[in-house]
């Protein structure tokens, strides 16, 4: 049976992981390659590197970071943040990314999804959707949650799929950073609307939040950053908890 995936996100700025990291015994805590190695040993299923800078210098640093992370890692690696053009995507893929994640650029020009899917295959194209509750709908935001758009998250996910996206990375702006749990109704609504996998993100605070998003939320994968950085929770402990709750995982 297909396992539910646990994906760790590394927010990277100028070659360093920037979300606060508090692992004891991790000497160079800000080094993405070292953190990636540790997560890999613990059994993470996939990694996402999110570039949170946007300058040309940082873009070059990003390629070095991707190369360093990918060197000894034999699990899927996605790269997002600041991928605006086919050339940006090509640079990430050449450095070792298996998938690129599009957000603002896909909203501005949805044909970029099709272009990249045509060049690399749909499996290499993630469309990231940042959604925020707005009365009875989920509004899509661009530019890291700063700019509201007129799009509805469920409809945008459907369109992204029809344009060639291979997966949806769905983040709840309302829950992001709150540790109050994933937005399960949002995740379930999008998951039911598309046939491609949906990765839930935003709000992970406890182990049970993951159980909830894989059952009530119908997520295919869950992504988290700070729960692995801050909490005493390891990837292995999370997966054991999921298995104990009958959620299929790779252990």
């Amino acid at each position, binding site marked *: 049976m297909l396992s*539910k995936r646990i994906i760790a996100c590394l927010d990277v700025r100028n070659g360093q992981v920037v979300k606060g990291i508090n692992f004891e015994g991790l000497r160079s805590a800000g080094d993405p390659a070292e953190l990636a190695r540790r997560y890999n040993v613990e059994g993470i299923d996939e990694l996402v590197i999110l570039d949170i800078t946007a300058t040309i210098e940082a873009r070059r640093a990003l390629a070095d970071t991707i190369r360093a992370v*990918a060197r000894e890692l*034999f699990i899927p690696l996605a790269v997002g943040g600041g991928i605006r053009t086919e050339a940006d995507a090509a640079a990430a893929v050449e450095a070792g990314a*298996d998938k690129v994640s599009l957000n603002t650029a896909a909203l501005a020009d949805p044909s970029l999804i099709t272009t990249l899917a045509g060049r*690399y295959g749909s*499996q290499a194209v993630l469309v990231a959707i940042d959604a925020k509750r707005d009365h009875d709908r989920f509004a899509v935001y661009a530019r890291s949650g700063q700019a509201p758009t007129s799009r509805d998250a469920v409809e945008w996910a459907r369109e992204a799929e029809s344009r060639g996206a291979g997966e949806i990375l769905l983040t709840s702006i309302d829950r992001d950073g709150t540790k109050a749990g994933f937005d399960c109704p949002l995740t379930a609504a999008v998951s039911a609307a598309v046939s491609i*996998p949906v990765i839930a993100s935003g709000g992970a605070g406890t182990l049970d939040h993951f159980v909830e998003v894989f059952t009530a939320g119908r997520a295919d994968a869950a992504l988290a950053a700070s729960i692995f950085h801050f909490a005493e929770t390891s990837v292995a402990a999370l997966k054991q908890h999921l298995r104990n709750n009958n959620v299929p995982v*790779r252990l």
Partner: protein
Amino acid sequence: MIALIDYGAGNLTSVKKALAAVGAEVFVPVRPEELTAARGIIVPGVGHFGATRALGDAWVGAIRTRVDEGCPLLGICLGMQWLYESSDEAPELKGLGVLLGRVVRLKPAAPYENSGTVVGSGSSRTSADQEGASGSSRTSADQEGASGFSRTSTIKIPHVGWNSLAIVRDDAVIAGVASGAQVYYTHSYVAPITSDTAATTEHGEPFAAIVQRGHVAGVQFHPEKSGDVGLQVLRNFLLLTSNV
């Protein structure tokens, strides 16, 4: 030297990196004639079967000649599908045809209602194959019964993520891989379960996960993205090439 075939549909960097990690010397031939120097051939690939069009007559001829001479061949994902006669994804194209059967699309379906009947429906499948297939689906149905999980989940296509291997036969290419080991998949089409199947995986229906027929082998998953299990499979293939 292992020849890694570049036909524009590969994640060549990842495959090269994984092969280097298990100690292989790799070259990417520019012309088909260079295959005479290869001790083993790997056809990688992700994406659409139509991409195999780039493997024109000259490449097909050179690869077939080397395989006839006993050179081990490994197909990965799309590269494995290309080893068969044809694929429903691009019916106008021919595969290499060193393995018998037709590649078909996975069906988005409720998990266990159809698995028994769907398996036997392909024209190239024999009744013996059906037995093997339903045997493996019974096993997972039992595991399923314990959890009850997948009855509430749907089968999404493409099949993306980590899924487990059910080993059917102890072939060289899966030496050291435990039944139940998980590997990384991303695909929508599958090869039929035949007498060449060494391991199966189930996603709505069982399909050929690892195949081996003599010195020709194929893996539907991505060994270059499947952690230690994937590296072990690549190591096994290297051993095949060193025995030539």
